[in-house]
């Protein structure tokens, strides 16, 4: 029987871009059949960037869509939204985000979800934190000042609690590893993602644990989260898989760093 997760080391793509594109932040959005939602999300992020005078390019990563997502993105680009679309053959949110991060050529790179569960208004404060020398800014639904504009269902919350309890052994005092919004100094992100191996939803835990190992300067940013009823996360299938990925992440991290991880230098709430 095939193992559920194949042990695999990500190899740096020989086609990584190096030429700067002139944008300050590349915001990666992994997509799987988001034809209905991606158009509005792109427009809203662009509107926010213009309103707050931010230099943001959106990098959509197609993870195997069978709908018109690519068409909608092309239309958005025609209408003036700075957006590029690339694709990732390897299935999984982690694999898609990794592809986008490695493809990015801006000084800052981050990722968010296609369903706008994180409001675009946090992009400005996140960039401000990066400019003030934090290397990793972690969107959080649980730090002081955060909350749920639209709450999650009971079962999902229970699953999250169990996952958080297990993940905290790797991620340390970070209050929320699974919020879909994080931004990084590009060089840091590329180093973290190039050595990451989790392709599924639990990839954040591995990336943050690696950042802890490396003593990157991290900070949490409070998010007003709106839970999306049409999330592509399937509670049972993806939930079980995420727990297995956590185990895999743990093995992978122990293999890469024999010494115990140290506490992050700045993991306090930004309130």
């Amino acid at each position: 029987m095939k193992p559920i997760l194949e042990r695999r080391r990500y190899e740096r793509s020989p086609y990584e871009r190096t030429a700067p594109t002139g944008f300050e932040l590349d915001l990666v959005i992994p997509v799987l059949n988001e034809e209905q939602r991606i158009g509005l999300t792109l427009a809203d992020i662009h509107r926010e960037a213009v309103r707050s005078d931010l230099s943001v390019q959106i990098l959509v990563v197609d993870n195997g869509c069978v709908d018109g997502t690519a068409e909608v993105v092309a239309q958005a680009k025609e209408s003036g939204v700075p957006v590029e679309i690339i694709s990732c053959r390897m299935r999984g949110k982690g694999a898609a985000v990794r592809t986008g991060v490695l493809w990015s050529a801006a000084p800052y790179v981050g990722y968010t979800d296609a369903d706008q569960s994180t409001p675009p208004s946090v992009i400005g404060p996140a960039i401000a934190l990066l400019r003030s020398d934090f290397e990793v800014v972690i969107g959080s639904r649980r730090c002081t000042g955060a909350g749920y504009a639209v709450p999650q269902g009971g079962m999902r919350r229970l699953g999250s609690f169990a996952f958080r309890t297990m993940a905290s052994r790797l991620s340390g005092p970070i209050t929320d590893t699974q919020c879909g919004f994080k931004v990084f100094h590009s060089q840091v992100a590329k180093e973290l993602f190039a050595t990451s191996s989790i392709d599924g939803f639990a990839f954040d835990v591995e990336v943050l644990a690696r950042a802890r190992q490396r003593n990157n300067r991290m900070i949490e940013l409070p998010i007003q989260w709106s839970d999306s009823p049409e999330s592509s996360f399937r509670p049972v299938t993806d939930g079980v898989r995420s727990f297995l990925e956590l185990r895999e992440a743990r093995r992978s991290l122990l293999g890469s760093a024999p010494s115990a991880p140290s506490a992050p230098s700045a993991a306090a709430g930004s309130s």
Partner: protein
Amino acid sequence: MTAGRGSGHARVVITNWRDRKHPDAGGAEEVCEQLARNFVGRGYEVVLLTSSVAGERSREVVDGYSIVRRGGRFTVYPWALAWLLWNRGRVDGIIDSQNGIPFFTPLAVRSKTPVLMLIHHVHQDQFALYFSPLAAKVGRWLERRGARLVYRNRSIVLVSPSTRHGARRRLGLKGEMLVVPPGSESPVLPLPGHQVRADHPRIVCVGRLSPHKRTASVVGAVAEMLDDFPDLELHLVGEGPDRPALERMTADLGLVGHVTIHGALAPSERDALLRTAWLSVNASEGEGWGLTVIEANRLGVPVLAYRRPGLKDSIRHGETGWLVEEDRPLAPAVSAALHAMADRSEAEAMGTRARQWSSQFTWDEMATRVLTMLRAEAGRLAHSPDERRTFTDLATVVRIPVDLLPEGEVPTFRSTDRCMVSDGELVVLLRGADTQTARIALRRAGFSSAAIDDERVQIAVARPVDLVSPAVSAAVSGAPRAVTAAGRREDALAG
């Protein structure tokens, strides 16, 4: 699977619930017949397994292929399986045409025999329209879970990107999928100037008169437009259960003289009428692809339809016809399109694009691609399950100026990729490649790193239209859009 194997020819079996002689035959039957005929022309022995038709023989040879008719609407399925089981040693490949319920042919043939399920459209919502609640539930189960259990990872051919979307998302089928639009037999009308359209606005609609096609809404729209177009004509070509109701509606709305119901016409008569149309309208709830759209386009007639499955793939909005958004009424949209067509030069440009777009869809092309996929499936099954390549639904379109082609050698791609030259560019659709691995595929095909990194080379995620037509889509939709009054009307339609 190769033609001319051993002592005889390779034998391809096509299973379909009806054949062309069935009174209710439609597009799916035409596809099966055209594939059968085309395969025979390429040296294959072809058998079409289908249901009995009153007055027709249970076995006959038509155009070189054999038709075996057994069973009725429901019993044709066990009959076909029994035939395959009996002949399993002499079957080299199967095209299993699914019309709601697939034939489950993998149950009856050897595990290494390649089977391609051919899906026209997804029927999950239609079972309830035709059957009792229990029977509808069984039908939905067979199309979805039953098919998933039996076909597992076997490859699937779909007639449009919309059907692929339904098969993957609604049916949850697992096999590798190839989109192959059907061809058309209608002649492509020669260049503009030859067009003999009617002097006054005329709409011709071709298709079965059944509830699913919503022809009544077109008749209703005509009634609303008479103030704007007092000499408007609507011609309906086709038969079906809705005919009496449509005739009553025509009389009740006082449209006698404006609406003519012709019934079924011979192809030559149908084409002679269709080419006089200003516009064709398809108000259907959805199609697999839209054979009638392509037939109208071939005669230079644009088609207006709602943005619904299949139709959104066969119509290029503003280029070869118009797509109306779901929540919009039909009459204003048709009226705007007729106003656009009233402009002779606009009509001629539209007609030219429609002909250009439709002329690429041929039965020969469809047969070539289906056979290529059948061979690829045979190759896949020849490996043990652990050795089989993983696949993805992604595809990448690469456009390379021809001056960057490697000197002295012809670039070679996989048989299931598509490769064509258009407007001084080599256009390649790389199936299963993402935008990163596309570069590796180009290297393998013989391109140097310098050529691949050339700034004129475009590497883009394939859109649904690229799966249908990677080269022509660029030529048609890449045409600059003039901001004319007609253009603004188009935008009003889209909005």
